[in-house]
């Protein structure tokens, strides 16, 4: 077996960005897009300060989070460890970009010119429409490797068969080779030097190894990156807000969650009273609207059918498949008025909102999302929003139809909503505690905690009071329902956009420079546990 990897010697790297530039030339990446780049870290406080340069890019992980989440199977992993993207299949959902903890993936939707205006000659020459609207990233210069091997060359040894970044490195800091070959250049380096990999604790098995000290032996333990507060001038390495998913993605989570919850509420209500078909219709419409939002977000919308290609691993594919059953059964139920069909649709509604929760959970690049406690929280939030919305719909329906749905039904509804709000609050507490102080970037936690009208505190208490008051005045149930809905939406809006900071970068150990000694690393923007 072959497993290609890059070894970056941090003792050698000078941060010159020659590799960055060589990559841009080799791969004709758009202005601002850097498949390979070198980060600039600083650790300590004046005058005890050290600085190091860290080349990053796609890590071609052993367990690539991008591959797992990809709904279209565009992302694949070759037998030699190289993670590839099939531009002709990719739908441009950018889920992989979010799932990647190394910020290695990009999506460019329109041709970009370095100087604006007309494209320069070399830009025109290298136009590649296939790369527009789809995911792109470092390929380890797979075409150089394949062409080189076809010509009998050895990747990592012969320049023409070696990634451009490695071949361009002026400090001899980058080495490419097969780590499965014990005698290879990279294996030798790893055997003879202390090394770490970035975000090792995330279990991705990244394929870039960083040498930080010499000739100690690879079994020597390395310290995890300590977390420090208030790093100065580290914007380039701090966790950043993800910009791949915006309000359109939020639309899927808020409409999809509320719509699914609404249909479930309607189905359950059907067990004790005549089904409220307007709620069913609304539930279907909301989920449809949510999926419509996603359709607007993806880079290649007319390839949307490719979303179904990866149900084996991708929760996005599964969500899409579940949505088909959901619409089929829910739609038929609405058309035929058959309660049985509605009851059959309800589990798919539940599955849909569960799939949404798992979509977030699978995004390992976003610390707030990848917590396992997010799954019950997102599910119950969806159910609570659905119940709240159902209460609103029911009251409106009652008002429009002049039909009294009765105290008993109020009781079921109010009780259900009360229980869900309490449960949601409890799950929020569990989730937030799980994040603790160090489970997410400081800025993400601050945003989450400061989000008004979210799941914590007074807002939820007011909802419970209003629900309790429903026995005196039914209208308060509607207000409570609306609040339950809106606070859930507000939370998810914050979760998916404003608090969705990525992992950021880290350096586990500052390298020894020459005769110097290595030192503690840094995970900028994270607070100590």
């Amino acid at each position, binding site marked *: 077996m072959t497993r290609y990897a890059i070894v970056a010697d941090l003792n050698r790297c000078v*941060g010159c*960005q020659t590799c960055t530039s060589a990559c841009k030339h080799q791969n004709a990446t758009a202005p601002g897009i850097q498949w390979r780049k070198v980060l600039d870290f600083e650790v300590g406080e*004046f005058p005890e300060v050290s600085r190091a340069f860290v080349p990053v890019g796609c890590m071609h992980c052993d367990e690539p989070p991008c591959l797992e989440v990809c709904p279209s199977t565009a992302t694949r992993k070759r037998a030699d460890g190289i993670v590839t993207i099939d531009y002709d299949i990719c739908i441009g959902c950018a889920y992989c970009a979010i799932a990647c903890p190394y910020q290695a993936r990009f999506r460019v939707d329109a041709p970009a010119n370095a100087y604006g205006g007309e494209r320069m000659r070399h830009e025109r020459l290298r136009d590649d429409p296939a790369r527009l609207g789809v995911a792109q990233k470092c390929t380890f210069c797979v075409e150089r490797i394949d062409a080189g091997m076809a010509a009998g060359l050895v990747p990592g040894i012969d320049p023409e068969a070696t990634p451009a970044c490695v071949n361009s490195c002026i400090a001899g800091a980058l080495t490419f080779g097969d780590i499965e070959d014990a005698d290879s250049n990279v294996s030798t380096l790893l055997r003879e030097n202390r090394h770490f990999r970035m975000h090792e604790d995330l279990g991705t098995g990244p394929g870039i190894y960083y040498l930080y000290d010499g000739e100690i032996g690879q079994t020597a333990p390395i310290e995890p990156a300590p977390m420090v507060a208030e790093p*100065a001038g580290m914007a380039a390495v701090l966790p950043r807000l993800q910009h791949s998913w915006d309000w359109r993605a939020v639309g899927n989570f808020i409409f999809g969650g509320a719509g699914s919850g609404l249909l479930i509420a309607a189905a359950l209500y059907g067990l004790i009273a005549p089904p409220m078909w307007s709620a069913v219709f609304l539930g279907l419409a909301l989920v449809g609207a949510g999926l419509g939002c996603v359709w607007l977000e993806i880079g290649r919308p007319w390839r949307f059918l490719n979303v179904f290609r990866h149900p084996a691993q991708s929760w996005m594919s599964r969500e899409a498949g579940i949505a088909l059953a959901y619409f089929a059964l829910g739609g038929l139920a609405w058309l035929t008025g058959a309660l049985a069909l509605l009851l059959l649709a309800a589990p798919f509604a539940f599955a849909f909102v569960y799939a949404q929760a798992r979509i977030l959970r699978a995004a390992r690049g976003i610390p707030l999302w990848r917590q396992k406690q997010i799954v019950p929280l997102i599910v119950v939030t969806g159910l609570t929003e659905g119940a709240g919305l159902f209460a609103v719909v029911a009251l409106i329906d009652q008002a429009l139809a002049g039909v009294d749905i009765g105290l008993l039904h109020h009781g079921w509804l109010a009780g259900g909503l009360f229980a869900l709000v309490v449960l949601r609050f409890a799950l929020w507490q569990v989730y937030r505690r799980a994040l603790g102080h160090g489970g997410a970037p400081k800025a993400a936690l601050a945003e989450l905690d400061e989000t008004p009208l979210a799941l914590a505190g007074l807002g939820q208490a007011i909802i419970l009071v209003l629900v309790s008051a429903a026995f005196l005045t039914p209208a308060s149930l509607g207000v409570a329902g609306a609040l339950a809905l809106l606070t859930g939406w507000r939370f998810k809006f914050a979760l998916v956009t404003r608090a969705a900071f990525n992992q950021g970068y880290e350096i586990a150990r500052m390298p020894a420079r020459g005769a110097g000694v290595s030192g503690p690393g840094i995970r900028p923007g994270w607070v100590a546990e």
Partner: protein
Amino acid sequence: MQQNADTPSDGRWSYCYQCVAGPDLLKVKTRNGVPYQVGPNDEAAEIHPAGGKVCVKAFGLIQKTHNPNRILTPMMRTNPKKGRDQDPGFRPVSWDEALDAIAARLKQARADGLTDESGFPRVAASFGGGGTPTAYMGTFPAFLAAWGPVDMSFGSGQGVKCYHSEHLYGELWHRAFTVSPDTPLCELVISFGANVEASGGVCGIRRHADARARGIRRIQVEPHLSVTGACSAKWVPIRPKTDAAFLFAMLHHLLYSAPRERLDLPFLKEMTSSPYLIAPNGFYLRDPDSGKPLVWDLKTATARPFDSPDLDPALEGEFVASGREDGADEQRWSHENIPTRPAFSHLIAHVEPYSPVWAAEICDVPAEDIRDTAEAFLDHAHVGETIEIEGRRLPFRPVAISLGKTVNNGWGGYECVWARTLMACLIGGLEVPGGTLGTTVRLNRPADNRWSSVTPGPDGFMFYPMNPTEKETWHKRSTTRHAHQTLVPLAANSPWSQALGPTHLAWMMQKKGFDHLPKPTPPDVWFVYRTNPAISFWDTGAVLDAMSNFPFTVCFAYTMDETNHTADILLPECTDLEGLQLIRIGGSKYVEQFWEYQGFALRDPASPPQGEARDFSWISTELARRTGLLEKYNAAINKGAAGVRLFGEGYDFSLPPEQPHPPEEIWDAICRAASAELTGGAQSQGLDYYRKHGFRVKKFPRLQWYLYPALKDQGLRFELPYQERLMRIGQQLGARLHEAGITWWDRQLKEYEPMPHWQDLPGLWAQALEDAFEVRIDDYPFWVLTARSMQYSWGGNAGIQMIDEVARNIAGHAGVVMNPKAAARLGLREGDLVEIASPSGKTRGAVSLRQGIRPDTLLMLGQFDHWKTPYAKELQRPSMNALMPMLLALTDATGSGADLVRASVTPIGAAP
């Protein structure tokens, strides 16, 4: 003989010489005649010190070629008024119209006399960094040679942006235009602000990376944690411009705290002036008959000439001796039985006040750190050890001290370069394996080989081509506007000397002349190529004002910029990937280009010229033809003005002088001569050969990296520690200047000390600013420094988008670097906009917070502040050049200043 494998099927061979650390070799991939990718020349991996690599700057060349902001047709100014606020009103013209207009001006200048009423050349030219433009200007040097006197004294960075004191004193002491550690063998480098990881080029980067990998120890002494500091084992954040105190304190430790036997006493006795006896007036005590300096021979207990056989000269002690003493001009003294001490004894007394404890307060560095540094220097010196290089056994001293910009230029430069070179002598580490080496010569001749430049001079030292200071020969009227022959003996008078004079004086005198120098005049015609002094020099506002008064400026222009804003004619020449040229490669050269090969490399056009751009050699030929200088021009090419002499023993590829020759014909002849030169006339392959192979080299002996053998073989010594010759020259210069009524150079004359004393350098800056601008220096609490950036240095690429994009990955490129605590005191956060004001100027930029900088220091990388250059002007980046006044008080005796000023910081807006 080594050669490349073959012409690349998908591209062309070329070279990158955008920075002084080049040239390096590269390959340009093309498709359909469009260059689209730059990469290393892997075929040169075996012969190039950095394995055939090129740095990030070379990767900007694709955009540089296709940049839509390029000037692609000749342009002529329509608005006679010049200045920043004036629209030049450039209109496109044909090449004929542009060249005829230039030729008319040149012919008029020629008719008026090659020099004007002040004796200055009517034609002036300014070229960019470190001579690199010659690698792109084709045969233009032949045109200049054919023309006659050309004034190159209008600086565009020289002095203030270079390693000026190192250039001059380095060439004097060890043929070292620049200085480098023998990195491949070195164990310890103490680097005072030398930024090799940013400006050392691919060869420097690779050598130091390899050295780090084998465990070299480098201590970086610098007020901020530069890229080089980052790559060092230790960072010592010294107070700005106090490096001389640190170095003096190291000397103190070596001479007062270490046992003598830890020094290389044989080296000091045999290879330096340490044993020379000093007479009462400070000059050498000399043999009355031969005039040779005397030493005290311990064997015979007598004073004997330094080169007497079988000597054991004393280094220390007081001895009674007789002899003569030769002072300045005709001063002579005769001494009988006077007490006298060797120079080394004087040195010991000289450094006595400069203890580490004394330096600690000045430098803001603990005395213990200074002692440890000096002790490490001794520990790694390996005194007494030898190593064999190419069959010759040489001393092995794997320790060196590097000096960076602002340390080795301006006031204090002499002190630092002297102390550094002297310390190398103390352990026998000058010009030996592992130690402190020169790279190349630019003032001494011949320039192609340091060994050849070693010829005997006075008193057992090497010859040095000083500008004369004797009454009969002193140049009262210099042939250049900056008066380098008049004021700076060390600047010599080689083709490079003009660039190494006090180049800011040429600009200063355009505003107000200096008393008793010829009346300042603007040049009739000023040529500008690959330089933008309105951005890259100090006091850029004053420079712009001066050039706005030049009557006729011709800029070989890439894009519009701040300098060619004042031009009368813009000429679009083929840029790096479009022009044809053959240059020399290999040998030893700055910054750390130590090759084991030497030869030639071709710049084969990878792209047809864009628009109306023309090959520089075509432009040069046309200028020569239209000004009636064709025969002289061709003759100059034949004599080697384009880099290779076209005839030699057994070959002659001279061009017929009476007719114009197209560039390909010229370069074919040059290629043939190059082949012949490399093969001793045996082969004569031309352009096609180089197009196919890219380069051609032969071996360069590694032994020639070291100057020690050349001196040893000729029985010569390094002129250290005592500067008797400089003291004499300084006194003579002072006498000449005073005879001419010139007293404004008196402060500079004080530098001519036999051994430099510490002067309060930070205080000198503060005082100069207070005096010149009547300010309180405390109102300007920060020191402002700059540093080179590999992405930008010398590249002329501030308008290249890709360079900007990748440079942003390295902290500090986006604004002014500031310590977080200092920023907090001003209520500043990352990205906040500030105005930085010195007593003489202002600049603006965003705050970039880093812990790796002293709280009393600000750092502005590179040179920005563009207001005309497309793209660059949108960057809104600060530049310290606008803050730096050109002051005589801040000009040292070599004519250089230093990038250093005091400034205040005022918040003007929150981060966007």
